[in-house]
């Protein structure tokens, strides 16, 4: 039979199939990247249900804009996270704008059943909420570069594509963001004056 090459369906083949006809390929793309988008949205919002809703909207945007999906080093994930970032810049407005879609894409069962993970997920919520008290004092550019490069683990090239900036800018922005964050964490909380 000779040398063979077997692999999971690549994003290149999935996006190509999506252009031709493929809602099937779209479903597979969703399965492959839903969790990455879901975790990205959760870490920025601290809300698992909202993260689910935003994930669905990101993928619907991907379907509707499938001719514009840009693959970076063969991956659609940077593009998907860029769409997520656009929504996360103003989550409240995004939810309001997409409220009808969100309602259509939300399962009838109101809240997800996390079963035995419930306690860990509650811990995650507390962690992110505590973190966000500091994190949200950063400029949006700084938040995005940290969440993409550090939390989502994108390479500089992938993050550059997601942020639509040169690779050098990603590196300098990341260094700057980390420095700012360090300074923010070192700044003592203002003392409460007692009468």
């Amino acid at each position, binding site marked *: *039979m*000779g*040398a*063979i*090459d*077997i*692999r*999971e*369906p*690549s994003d290149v*083949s999935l996006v*190509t*199939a999506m252009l*031709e*006809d*493929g*809602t*099937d*390929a*779209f*479903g597979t793309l*969703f*399965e492959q990247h*839903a*969790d*990455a988008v*879901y*975790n990205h949205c*959760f870490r920025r919002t601290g809300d698992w249900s909202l993260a*689910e809703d935003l*994930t*669905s909207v990101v*993928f*619907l945007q991907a*379907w509707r804009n499938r001719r514009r999906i840009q693959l970076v080093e063969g991956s659609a994930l940077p593009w998907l996270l860029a769409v997520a970032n656009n929504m996360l810049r103003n989550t409240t407005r995004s939810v309001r704008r997409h409220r009808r*879609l969100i309602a*259509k*894409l*939300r*399962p009838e069962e109101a809240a*997800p*059943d*996390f*079963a035995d*993970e419930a306690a*860990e*997920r509650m811990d*995650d919520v507390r962690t*992110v909420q505590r*973190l966000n008290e*500091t*994190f949200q004092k950063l400029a949006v550019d700084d938040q995005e570069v*940290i969440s993409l490069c*550090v*939390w989502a*683990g994108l390479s500089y090239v992938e993050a550059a594509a997601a942020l639509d900036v040169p690779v050098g800018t990603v590196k300098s922005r990341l260094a700057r963001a*980390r420095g700012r*964050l*360090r300074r923010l*964490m070192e700044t003592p909380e203002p003392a409460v004056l007692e009468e």
Partner: protein
Amino acid sequence: MNDEMSAMQAEPTPARSMPVPRLAERKRLLLAVARPRRRRQVVFACAGAVTAVAVTTGALVLTTREPRPAKQHDMIRCYSIGDPDGRAYTELSRASLPEDPGPAQIYDPVPSCASLFRQGFLRLGRSGVDKDTDPNVGHPVPKTLVACVLKNGQIAVLPGTECRQFNLPALSAR
């Protein structure tokens, strides 16, 4: 503070998966919104003063799909579960010789996929490629594999007896 700083240097929370039933339901709803709606063609038949709408109860008209050629033969899908809408497949291509122009062509899709089962890369009923393979051991091969053509023109080899059961056309002979 140290905890927070370290969280800024790595994933602040462990990566978690959307619960499986939830993911499946979200996918179903997404596909329902994404799939183009088929326009229903309503035919009114008027004959004189009588309007007749004939419905043959219990009669199911099966459209026999004609075998179809594939759009390409350089990458095919081998499914380990008989569900062309699922993701329990792997894509198979063959390395071409340096002197051959273009990708190698696969004109024997069923034996090619059967070979993946025989070598243990694929296991019937299980998704994903099995890493624990042993080419010296003859692993089980599904009794029947059938080569069909997906909507995108790609060849799909599925465990089953005929493509009609998957609502797909069969791959036409070369």
